[in-house]
């Protein structure tokens, strides 16, 4: 069985936020909700300062703390490793948000907030609320564009190779800093990059075994 994962090349990432916006557009995310983010920080002291740009998203951990924490079973891990939320079961306790070491979950509270206040919803927002009817009072997060993956697999397309089967953030990246594929397939590009480029995970000490890796070469 495939286990979907992502590799992000930090040397190629230019901090353009295209991935963040592509995700927002793909899922018609409401205002103040971000499933992917780009963190920008500094390390070192003048004159030896390094700027760091880290695109972050749900790591779809193999040992996800959020899955164990969820009291209703709304958060679950599929066989292919993607951690999803069943919004009909989520009770909004936010224990998963506490448990996540990467803080990649959002609590959706204000369903009435508009991108253009007092001007009503745009056509895009109306379509978005029909296609992705997020429920107020529930927790939402990145799902590796699972709808694209599921729909494309039925058509025989390959996630990570065919555009239609690949998450929006990976396709949107102008510098090709993101790679997506099957971590269980040693011949996949992600597996090759992880082994050849000495990829690392964020906060491995928490024992979550994330499916998102970072490389710096």
């Amino acid at each position, binding site marked *: 069985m495939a286990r979907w994962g992502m590799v992000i090349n930090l040397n190629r990432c230019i901090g353009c936020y295209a991935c963040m916006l592509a995700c927002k557009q793909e899922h018609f995310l409401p205002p103040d909700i971000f499933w992917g983010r780009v963190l920008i*920080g500094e390390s070192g002291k003048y004159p030896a300062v390094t700027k*760091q740009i880290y695109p972050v998203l749900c790591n779809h951990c193999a040992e996800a*703390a959020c899955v164990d924490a969820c009291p209703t*079973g709304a958060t679950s891990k599929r066989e292919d490793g993607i951690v999803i939320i069943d919004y009909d079961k989520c009770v909004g306790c*936010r*224990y998963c*948000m*506490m448990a996540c070491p*990467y803080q990649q979950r959002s609590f959706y509270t204000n369903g009435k907030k508009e991108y253009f206040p007092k001007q009503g919803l745009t056509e895009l927002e109306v379509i978005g609320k029909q296609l992705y009817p997020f429920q107020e009072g529930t927790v939402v997060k990145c799902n590796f564009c699972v709808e694209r993956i599921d729909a494309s697999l039925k058509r025989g397309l390959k996630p990570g190779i065919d555009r239609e089967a690949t998450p929006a953030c990976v396709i949107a990246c102008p510098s090709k800093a993101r790679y997506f594929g099957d971590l269980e397939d040693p011949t996949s590009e992600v597996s090759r990059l992880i082994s050849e480029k000495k990829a690392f995970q964020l906060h491995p000490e928490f*024992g979550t075994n994330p499916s998102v890796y970072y490389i710096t070469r």
Partner: protein
Amino acid sequence: MKPYEWMTTYTPQQEWIEKRGIFMPLAFYFGSLGGGLYLVSLYFDSLLGMFIAWLIVGGLKGGSHLIDLGRPFRSWRMVFRPQSSWISRGLILVILFLGLVPVQLFFSYFFPGTIWESIFKVLAGLAALGTCAYPGFTLNYVNAIPLWNSAVLPILFIACGFLGGIALLLVAGVLGGNVDLTMIEFGSLVLLIITVMLIIVYTWCASHAGPSGGKALKEILKGRSSPIFWLGVVLVGIIMPFTFIALGYNGMHVSKLLLLSGALGEIICGLSLTYAILRSGAYSPLIPLSPDKL
């Protein structure tokens, strides 16, 4: 915190302390308070105390949790994952407590001294202990927040629960209730000492829980949560009640008002401590920090 600082520096948790999340420390404390009051009332054989404990857990704790939830009408689903979720386990313990206590009170009132009274006292007592302790385990599970990931935390919550419970019994005693005031005063003093020792151990453990733990501890001792800690926990919660109750226990005349103030201080101690711990919980940054940001 500026938006660009989010998860690039130590980021305090917000969901269980801000906006509707303020009801989480309240719910946790009311659970500990109710469980502690029940157990103390079992010891002092106070049926009124047991009943009030039941009301606190069912009304105050339950109500606080329901207000906090995003979808409270789905709360019945929360019992389905006790194999992994501490919130599931806690809810089951609370439901058991709420179910067993009325039965125990029935037997204690109408059939005192029977084997059934003893059985239900034991069962309800175990559920009360679980109700007291599970908030500590719920927080302890979150290893992403080193301040919370401490084995001392459940014991601290139990101690705060007992302290608050005995404080409420002290109130009952001062107002003329049928309880042994001298024993309650003695118990208060002992529990205050135990709580102080546990707080010292907890803060010592937090200081050795890595940079995030140290940073969170600084928040409690010197940062945003320091007024709550030093005023609510230390001054009003420990020093004031210890002084008043010790004077009363040693035979000096202490007015009822001062004793009641001491009891209220003990309740404020637990509540303030729970609030300070939840408010100060912080996540480690996702990217390597520069030293001036530590």
